[in-house]
């Protein structure tokens, strides 16, 4: 008789039926023709800002060796549109909806978290602390451990929802930031956002991205993210969501073995629109083939 496979994972008080979810900014309701959203562990729309925001100069994406750089600039119609239109567009799907927040200041994070925390359709908040702190020195909130700690603890005061801190990899010590977020009251850590990068066309001598620099994603970044997951798992007991460069089930498993409880998949969907569900199927096949009945047994199982 076949044993029942357990793929459920926990992100704070939130239970996901499986560990595979989209990465913010690389997923939208438009993709429902390509995949069955009901198979996903969670639904995670693009980060939203408080006010409508136009986005950055073009080109907004460019290709690099085994990856891409993007500088979209959180083109957002604001939180009102998110509440009135985006959230309802996912209403008919079963997986919990995680709202990703980008803000210019700690006050704005708090304000948006209060509003979203009171919305019955939102099951968790992901705080995109990789965006620049415009009231501070303009560098990302998540680059400074005390700013990270302050941000998370202030948001913690206003909502009971599980809080995921989406860390930036553009730091000297991801461990310090992870500890600061955990102490601030985060329920989970997303490791990580994109790596700040740049590419130049040698013929025109111009940057390939309109905004000069942008965020690097895709398979080329995966070893860096695996390393960071491993490092964070050593200093934090929080569940980790691995994100960066996953193209297939084995890539996702690598992050789980390094210490991630769940994974997010972004760029891979641009190449294979069914990537999210393909990855889930590949993980399940692996579990069966390796006679593992509970995915949680694999989390952090790396042998060093």
């Amino acid at each position, binding site marked *: 008789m076949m044993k029942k496979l357990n793929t459920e994972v926990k992100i704070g008080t939130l239970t996901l039926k499986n560990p595979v979810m989209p990465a913010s900014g690389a997923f939208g309701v438009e993709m429902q023709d390509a995949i069955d959203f009901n198979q996903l562990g969670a639904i995670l729309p693009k980060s939203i800002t408080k006010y409508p925001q136009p986005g950055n100069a073009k080109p907004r994406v460019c290709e690099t*060796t085994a990856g891409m750089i993007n500088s*979209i600039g959180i083109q957002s119609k604001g939180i009102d549109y998110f509440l009135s239109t985006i959230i309802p567009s996912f209403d008919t799907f079963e997986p919990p909806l995680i709202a990703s927040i980008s803000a210019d200041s700690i006050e704005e994070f708090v304000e948006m978290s209060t509003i979203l925390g009171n919305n019955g359709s939102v099951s968790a908040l992901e705080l995109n602390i990789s965006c620049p702190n415009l009231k501070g020195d303009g560098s990302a909130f998540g680059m400074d451990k005390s700013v990270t700690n302050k941000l998370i603890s202030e948001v913690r005061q206003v909502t009971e929802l599980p809080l995921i801190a989406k860390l930036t990899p553009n730091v000297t010590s991801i461990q310090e930031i992870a500890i600061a977020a955990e102490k601030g009251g985060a329920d989970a850590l997303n490791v990580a956002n994109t790596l700040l990068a740049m590419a130049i066309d040698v013929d025109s001598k111009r940057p390939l991205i309109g905004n000069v620099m942008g965020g690097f994603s895709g398979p080329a970044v995966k070893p860096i993210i695996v390393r960071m997951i491993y490092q964070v798992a050593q200093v934090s007991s929080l569940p980790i969501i691995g994100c960066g460069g996953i193209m297939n089930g084995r890539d996702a498993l690598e992050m789980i073995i390094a210490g991630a409880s769940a994974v997010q998949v972004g760029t891979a*969907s641009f190449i294979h629109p069914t990537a999210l569900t393909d990855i889930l199927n590949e993980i399940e096949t692996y579990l069966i083939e390796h006679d593992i009945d509970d995915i949680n047994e694999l989390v952090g199982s790396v042998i060093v």
Partner: protein
Amino acid sequence: MKQYKAPVLLNQQVSNRYWHMIVNTSMLDQSVEPGQFFQIRCADKYTPFLRRPLSVYRINEHTTEFLYLVKGKGTTEMTTIEQGDTIDLMGPLGNGFQIDSSMKTILLVARGVGVATLAAVAQAAYNKQIHCVAILSARTKEDLLAAEFLEGFGADVYKVTEEDGTSDVTNVQSIITNEIFGKYKIDCIYTCGSRRLSKLAQEMSTNYDIPGQIALEEHMGCAMGACFACVCDVMDGDVTKSVRVCIEGPVFPLRKVVIE
């Protein structure tokens, strides 16, 4: 929109810089319209990484054809695909051109590989017994692709090139106003492939009150409307609105687009 592995029936160089590919698309469960495009995986590798958008050049009952310029990594990889191989495509994507059967004569203004996109319009127009007049602009005479293909559909083709010193906007404008408008009543202008010619087509459309449609090109990420990489501005009354070329275009009303 779906992802398919389609058998390649032909992949052949047609001029110095251009290739022609025919794929068997009999598995598609929806029709393909002129102006729509496919996202092509040029090679099953991580480099080149992203898919490449190519519009449909010819639409047949069981096959779809592409005409592509060999530009960089992706299209160079595409030239290595051989007859009998399969190609991974996603599509058809985007909104195509509207070709209303009540029209009698239409004008196509194409620059370079823009003709690949407009050739499908000529084909559809022919099937609807609409007469086509086309201006094809290119760097060299060799790059004037598909002229014979258009002529085969009964189109009157005007060719302009840098090589002949005939492709400057002033000359194209004079061909349109003096020769074409003198001979025909144009019901709609279709354009693709050049910013300068699109601006000219836009002016003609406004000044002579002729409707027009334009197919835009932007660098794309997902091509499914999710990532907001391929945006452009269109006028919505007096306000500019940001739209996604992949799902709200690539075809837009000519007078509404803000040509940068």
